[in-house]
């Protein structure tokens, strides 16, 4: 049994405390925008925001999440896909298959919250999610665009 605040709604879930938050979000809550890629905190496909920090949820037991923690998933990032990161991603046609992109967008939006004008170096450090389709060049450009500046 856990109480979770997800995308501004508080929900009760019946689940073993050691279940990773990723699977609670996908299976008990039913929000499938957050993806499973590796299960070992390597790829970032499962990234969400918890209290504005990006977190890889595949290794986070739901039992360690507090009812007061604010969890935001890709579905809750903006009401209409209008977050600057989503807009920049659309403008540059970043996604290929799209599977990693929820995680990429959550990582990028957390970075911009922390550092509104990130340098290339900041982007290198923060954007460590794997994209097997190799959209990295456009991701970098889109982060700069979302920050309101042209690529350096």
């Amino acid at each position: 049994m856990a109480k979770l605040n997800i995308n501004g709604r508080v929900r009760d879930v019946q689940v073993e405390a050691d279940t990773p938050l990723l699977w609670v979000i996908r299976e008990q809550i039913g929000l499938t925008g957050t993806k499973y890629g590796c299960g070992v905190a390597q790829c970032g496909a499962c990234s969400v925001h918890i209290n504005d920090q990006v977190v890889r949820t595949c290794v986070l037991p739901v039992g360690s999440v507090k009812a007061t923690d604010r969890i935001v998933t890709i579905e809750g990032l903006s009401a209409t896909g209008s977050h600057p990161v989503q807009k920049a991603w659309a403008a540059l046609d970043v996604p290929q298959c799209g599977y990693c992109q929820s995680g990429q967008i959550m990582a990028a939006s957390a970075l911009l919250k922390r550092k509104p004008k990130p340098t290339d170096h900041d982007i290198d450090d923060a954007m460590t999610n794997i994209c097997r389709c190799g959209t990295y060049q456009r991701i970098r450009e889109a982060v700069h665009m979302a920050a309101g500046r042209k690529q350096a």
Partner: protein
Amino acid sequence: MKDIKLSRRRFIVGTAAAGGGLAVGIRMPLGLRAAEAQGTAAAAEVNAWVVVKPDDTCVIRIARSEMGQGTRTGLAQLVAEELECDWKKVATESITPGQNLARERVWGEMATGGSRGIRTSHDYVRRGGAAARMMLLQAAADEWKVPVAEVSVADGVITHAGTGRRTTYGKVAAAAAKLTPPDLKSIKLRDPKEWKIAGKPMKRLDTADKLDGSKVFAIDVKLPGMLHAAIKACPVFGGKLVSYDEAKISGRPGVRRVVKVNDSTIAVVADTWWRARSALEALPIVWDEGPGASQSSATIGKHLEEGLAAKDVYAFRNEGDAIAAIQGAAKKVEAVYGTPFLAHATMEPMNCTVKLSAERAECWVATQNSEASLAALSEQSGVPLAKCEVYRHDLGGGFGRRGGNQDYVRQAVNIAKHFPDVPVKMIWSREEDMGHDFYRPISQCKLAAGLDDKGALVGLHVRISGQSINAFVNPALVTNGQDARQLQGYTDKPGDAQLGYTVPSLLIEYVMRNTHVPVGPWRGVNTNQNAVYMECFIEEVARAAGADSLEFRRALMSKHPKHLAVLNAAAAKGDWGKPLPAGVHRGIAQFMGYGSYSAAIAEVSVSGEGKVKVHRMVLALDCGHAVNPDQIAAQVEGSVAYGLSAALYGECTVQNGRMTELNFDRYQLLRLAEMPKVETVIVPSHDFWGGVGEPTISVVTPAVLNAIFAATGKPVRTLPLKNVTLV
């Protein structure tokens, strides 16, 4: 234009007629979805490719799979080009293999691999678009009682110049749908030089739902009452399941039961996947690992090495007397190269949902070959084809993994057999995905070259010893080890994967040395290894000749003007011969595959500790007609990332008969910080149709290795680079 007569009833497709399953494949503007939900829109199927809605939305049917490569958008551009509709009002719909079967394959082949999605269907999809346009114009002309030659169309608005009358596709579609279609073969298609929609860098049609989490991948499918399965096959290839102790997990929450999937595979079914997975991890299983357990990378390496010296081999090309020419040459160069097994590691792990009823078999799956999925579903379930359906979802990566084999569909069917009328979703863990791939085949290559006293190449001998994909996939394709596919990129036949060099005496041989490891096509397939062998060795030979790497290649390419033009384009854009910052070095490579010509320049530095940094890559590609230049650039960028992952880190090593790299901690993939700046040059050419998704990957690794050679003075002959001491 010939008249189109009123004819037998054509299909009029209402929104409901598509069936519940098809809805998942539909990508439409939001407004349209709302109209559909209210059931207000009645759409007319003008022909198999084009459905027009009363609001003028043109729904273009797509038969090929979308796995990120942009084929959906490219095919829609080709249809829309001939249809002359308003691109802003284009939506697409993925047809299902069941529909294709029921309509005698009116949509042609659905398989999507070998970079063929566009190059083998451009003709008939454009004819489909043109035929629909002709019928729509005819319907307007009939309504106005004027000759069809007097009406014209732009952006889906039809006008009659004489009377100034106007109408739109949406208004005449229902009438057009009743007309006899024109003879497809007699249609004259537009000259690609006059394209307005095709050939342009249109935005993809399928981006929006990848940005807000609403896209439903196969792994995300939700069905009422659905159960979930976690699966494990014997870690040793060829091993068998002996026994398991179900009692040890039967009390766990949500667990339904253990299912023996086949001789070598077991699954746990539960109410959620995480519970199934946790129970599977706790389940005691006894395997008979079989003879494969004695195999390792070392034993496989020896097996291949033996092939390099074997007597009875397949001579694929034998022109002149290469052995004698090399022996008598003023200077000899020799080298042995090797490349490892590699996993595809699609971001979306293998998964499949199946529901079986007495009368019907259904499956929800990401597949590069949905007709093979349908066949596998039918065969494995025993339900006749006509009562099977595959609801295909866009793939979270394909790269060749989700092609003909359909192992995961067969497994999911076997699990679902235990739960009649209940949908069961099977998901592979990443560890399962990495441990049971169809790997890029392993090989070694021995090369020798002879130079005359002026430094000209007089003879070249290439011998590849390695595993054959065909021998694994379909042994009937290979007799006496003669598998030309393993020599992809070395043929003298023009058009697909031709070697760009002319060598006076040339001997190319293949020695088939198979292993117990399953193999299959991996983005770029054998062009990857073969380009490394050829292009890195040519670099060694050029240096031995004291020649410039570009000039040495040019001298061998006069009979291959298209290869040469692409090499020149890469060299020009890549500033070949111009000064570089201190410590940065250039490498060059060219190769051909999938009907397209590629070349690359890499700018690389090697640190004092031997760390490689790739700063910039320029890739030139001649794929003939370029349907969407921006998506071609995206594929080139992606091929650099995929290629560099392999060059820097990629290897699947065998220990005790099983793979040891089972997740991304040990199978490292390129990340953003390591991505070089990529510049794409599309060499304009309008006389053929080449592939895009795969060709350029082949030149990435050799260009980088040749730049490292320039930096260190030592050739790199084995991969991945993480295992090579550079300084």
